[in-house]
């Protein structure tokens, strides 16, 4: 994929052109997925015209709270990010991997036929897709399901100009402007004239843009877009200092604050389900009653369940504090060593969708406040062994 420079052939079009963009992608054989209002939330799913899009709607997000409101303008992308990211389309929550018959015959389901186009990918979400690329494609074995969805993917990104209450992509360095890896990126400008400033990131993106009616971008378009995105950077609802967070968490493996989190944590798995980078799965064999065949089914799993760490004799992480520590330490610290990138993209979903509003950014602050390295007794060391065989 050839990455073009961000300002290469920037163009401006009016909101009605969004319909033409959807039509152009459909004509090229893509199933277009974008934001829609479903069950009082902005949920990504199939869109066929701009009438499917959440025009004039915004979301208000805070810890354990999400509400939609009417805007006083016709913004098309005037919300932050939906309850779940794009993960479920690339790395589906339930996939039949193969069917095996008692006679030895094994059959694999065919890959999805239509390629996907994502409309309205936020910078944090784009970064999350790149993190999952590292995990699911660039390891020793590439995941065939993810690869078949990912290889033919077309991405229309939208830079953020109005971050939400739980956003902190400025702290994770993943937004608010879309980094690389998109086919087209847009900024929605709501000033005197409602319009979109669009740039191509790939040759294919440039080809699609060229098929749409537009005018070349002027310096005032660029200036306005730049100003709004820069303002967004300072308007994040949350922030977190990730400087030295790996050492911080490793050195605080036995900090009593983990127990404080465990008193609130429900171990319900919501943070991991909504996290756009969490990738863990389990597999189930589902035999027919007569044992003539079985399906092997892959399901999203979570490090917050007991079964997740079950090895012979019992679960390795029986306490909730150990499970939260595993998740947070992996996400913010050991992910770097394992995948060469951080696991958190600052989308804030784990804060918004935690049923009791546990805030990752606040917990990092609490570990800084209670950092065991500032206490005289050296306590850092290997993680304590707990549980043991039952």
């Amino acid at each position, binding site marked *: 994929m050839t990455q073009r420079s961000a300002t290469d052939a920037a163009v401006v079009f009016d909101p009605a052109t969004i319909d033409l963009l959807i039509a152009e992608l459909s004509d090229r054989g893509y199933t277009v997925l974008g934001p829609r209002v479903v069950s009082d939330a902005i949920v990504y799913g199939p869109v066929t015209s701009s009438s499917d899009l959440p025009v004039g709607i915004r979301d208000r997000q805070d810890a*354990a709270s999400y509400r939609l409101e009417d805007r006083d303008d016709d913004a098309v992308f005037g919300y932050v990010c939906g309850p779940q990211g794009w993960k479920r389309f690339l790395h589906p929550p339930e996939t039949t991997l193969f069917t095996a018959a008692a006679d030895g015959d094994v059959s694999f389901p065919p890959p999805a036929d239509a390629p996907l186009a994502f409309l309205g990918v936020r910078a944090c979400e784009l970064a999350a897709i790149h993190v999952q690329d590292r995990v699911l494609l660039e390891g020793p074995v590439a995941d065939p399901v993810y690869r078949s969805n990912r290889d033919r993917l077309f991405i229309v990104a939208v830079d953020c100009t109005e971050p939400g209450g739980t956003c902190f992509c400025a702290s994770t360095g993943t937004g608010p402007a879309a980094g690389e890896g998109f086919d087209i990126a847009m900024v929605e400008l709501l000033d005197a004239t409602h319009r979109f400033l669009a740039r191509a990131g790939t040759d294919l993106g440039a080809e699609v843009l060229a098929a749409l009616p537009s005018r070349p971008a002027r310096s005032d378009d660029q200036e306005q877009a730049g100003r709004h995105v820069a303002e967004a950077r300072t308007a994040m609802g949350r922030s977190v200092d990730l400087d030295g967070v790996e050492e911080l968490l490793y050195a605080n493996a036995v900090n009593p604050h983990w127990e404080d989190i465990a008193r609130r944590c429900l171990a319900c798995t919501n943070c991991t389900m909504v996290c756009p980078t969490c990738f863990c799965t389990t597999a189930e064999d589902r035999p027919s*009653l007569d044992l003539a065949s079985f399906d092997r089914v892959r399901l999203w799993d*979570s490090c917050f369940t007991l079964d997740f760490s079950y090895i012979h004799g019992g679960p390795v992480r029986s306490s909730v504090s150990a499970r939260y520590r595993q998740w947070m330490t992996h996400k913010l610290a050991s992910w770097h060593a394992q995948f060469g990138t951080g696991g958190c993209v600052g989308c804030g979903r784990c804060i918004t969708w935690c049923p009791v509003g546990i805030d990752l950014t606040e917990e990092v602050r609490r570990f800084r406040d209670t950092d065991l390295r500032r206490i005289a007794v050296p306590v850092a060391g290997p993680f304590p062994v707990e549980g043991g065989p039952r």
Partner: protein
Amino acid sequence: MTAIPTLAVFKFASCDGCQLSLLDCEDELLAVADMVQIANFPEASREVAPGPYDIVLVEGSITTRHDAERIREVRRQTDVLVTIGACATAGGIQALRNWSDVDGFVQQVYAHPDYIDTLATSTPIADHVPVDFELRGCPVNKYQLLEVIAAYLHHRRPNVSRHSVCLPCKRKGNVCVAVAHGTACLGPVTQAGCGAICPSYHRGCYACFGPAESPNVGSLVDHLRGEGVEPGDLVAMLRGFNAWAEPFRSASDRIEEGSRA
């Protein structure tokens, strides 16, 4: 040819809904009949074969001295005893009597209270005899019931998860009713198995599959109190079909103690 395994179904204090789940397996029923000989299942057939049996499904809770004796006899007649449903695994909705004066009820309801011989409590089967597997739900999920029967027949562990309802709810792509609608939902502390039916229809989970593994009911209660849910309503939420399950029982007792204090 060896005889196929025998299956028997026994009912205690219950509504029969769980054993009817077996008859609900219309598409799979012939396959089930090929796998097991249904030796004792009065809801399905008047033909009753004597024990011992290979697998026994027990529905209902223990509410009389007679039933407390009968369950011991059932246990003696089977290799594998699987309890099915909220009554058998937690005491059921009738366990609300455990907080009340049963004698008072009997005096008020019956013309001849002296005819009534009942215990003061409704308790799960596992309080009386060893149980090999507890299948939750009010009623149980028929696919889980088939899975458990098939697993025991094939000598493998059933694929029945103990984690919360939230995991399958999110896999389905549901919008969280608690966070997005402000609906009080017990999904985070309730065991999966129903397929997240209630949140799929925009209502809160009311815990008919009982407590999940490591349920932090206290934290959810604190959060719901902060959202303005009244203590009395919280007690009513927790004292449903699985009221006597320990995590719900103790959490609801603590709320009552707290509001008396």
